[in-house]
C-alpha cells in the first residue's frame, strides 16, 4: 500500500518522490486539507477504498495514512 500511495502522491498530487517516506507528515509534504479531499477521491476511484477527508486529515504521517487505507480495504465488502 505504501508504494501505491507513494505513486498517487507523486503522480497526482505533485509531491517530490524523495520526500515520500513513512515518517513524513502531511505538513512536511505541504499537503493541505484540500489535498486530503483529492486523495479521498483518488483512492475511491482507483482502489475502491472509501475514506473521508476528515479521516485522512487525522492520519498525521504517511505511515498513518497507509494503515488507514489498509484497514479500510480489508474491512470493505468483497
Amino acid at each position: 500500500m505504501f508504494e501505491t500511495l507513494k505513486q498517487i502522491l507523486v503522480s497526482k498530487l505533485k509531491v517530490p518522490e524523495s520526500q515520500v517516506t513513512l515518517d513524513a507528515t502531511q505538513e512536511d509534504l505541504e499537503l493541505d486539507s484540500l489535498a486530503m479531499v483529492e486523495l479521498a477521491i483518488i483512492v475511491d476511484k482507483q482502489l475502491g477504498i472509501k475514506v473521508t477527508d476528515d479521516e485522512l486529515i487525522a492520519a498525521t504521517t504517511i505511515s498513518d495514512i497507509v494503515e488507514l487505507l489498509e484497514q479500510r480495504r480489508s474491512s470493505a465488502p468483497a
Partner: protein
Amino acid sequence: MSAQHAAVVAGVGSWVPPTVVTNDELAARLGISAGWITSRTGIVTRHHVGPGTATSDLAVEAGRRALKAADEPSADAVIVATTTPDRPCPATAPEVAARLGLTGVAAFDVSAVCTGFLYALASGQGLIAAGTASRVLVIGADAYSTIVDPTDRDTAVVFGDGAGAVLLRAGEPAEPGAVGPVVLGSDGEHVELIQIPAGGSRQPHPPDPAARYFQMDGRATFRQAVERMAEAARQATTAAGWRLDEVDRVVAHQANARILAMVTEALDLPPDRQLANIDRVGNTGAASIPKLLADSVARGELAGGDRVLMTAFGGGLTWGATCLTWPHPRPDRAN
C-alpha cells in the same frame, strides 16, 4: 421541419472589468504568499469591478458582443444568470435588455449560483422549443468582489468579476450548435455549504454585518463539486448519445484548477481535453462557462465541429451539464 425547435448557438461574447487584481496584491493584504494562492487555486489574476460598476454593466457588454458575433441586431428574450443582481428587487435582466435596445422583450433572472448559466441555457432552450421566443440572449454575469469578504483568504483569492453571453436561435436538432439535452439537479440538504446567510427573508437584518458576506465550506464544496460535475457530465453525454471519450473539449465551471483536474481524473479524460482560463480570470460564477467559451474561440482553442461537454456545480447545491457540437462560423464571417 420538426415540431419542436432546437436551440442553436449563434454567437458568444464576454467581458471583464478593466481592473486586474494580482496575487501579490492579495497576498500582501491577506498575509499569505502569492505562491500559496497559485498552488492552491491555479489562479494568477482576476478582475474586479470599480466603485459604481454593477453586474448589469458587465452583462450589457457581454450581451452586446454575443449579438455582434451572431450578426443579429436583436433577441426576443433576455435571461441573466447571476448571484449578484444590481438590486435585490427587481431582476437585473430587464435593465440589461433595455440598455441593449431590446425594451419590450421577455426578461428575467435565474438564480442557481455557479450553475446559473446552464439553468439559464436550459430555460432559453425551453422558450425556443415551446415557440415562445426564437432568439434568446442568455447571459451569465457576476461581480463576486461585491459580496466576498475581502479578509477571507479562502474566497477572496478565488473569485473574480465578469460576464459571458450566448445568443440562442431556433434551429434544427441535427445542426452544429444545437444544444443537446441539459441535465440539471439540486440538493437543498446542503444549502449551508455555499451561502450568503443574511439579507434575505430568513435573516433580513443580521446583528453581525459579516453575515451578508458570501461564505463557502471549502473542503465539502470541493468533494461535492468534483462528484456532481463528473456525474452530470456522464449523464449529459449519455443523454446526447455520446461516449465520454468522444468529447473533444470539456468546458467545466472554472471553480478552482484543482477541482478541474479532479473532474478530468474522475471522468478518465486526458487533462488536455479541458479548456481553461481560470489562471487569468479566477472563478467568475455564472459567467464562467460562457466566458470560457468566448475566450476559447478567440484563442483558437474551440472550433467548428468540436464536440463540447459543459458541466457546472454551484450553491444550492445545484449542478448541470450538456453537450453540443460547436457551430462553424458563418461563411461570410469566417477568418
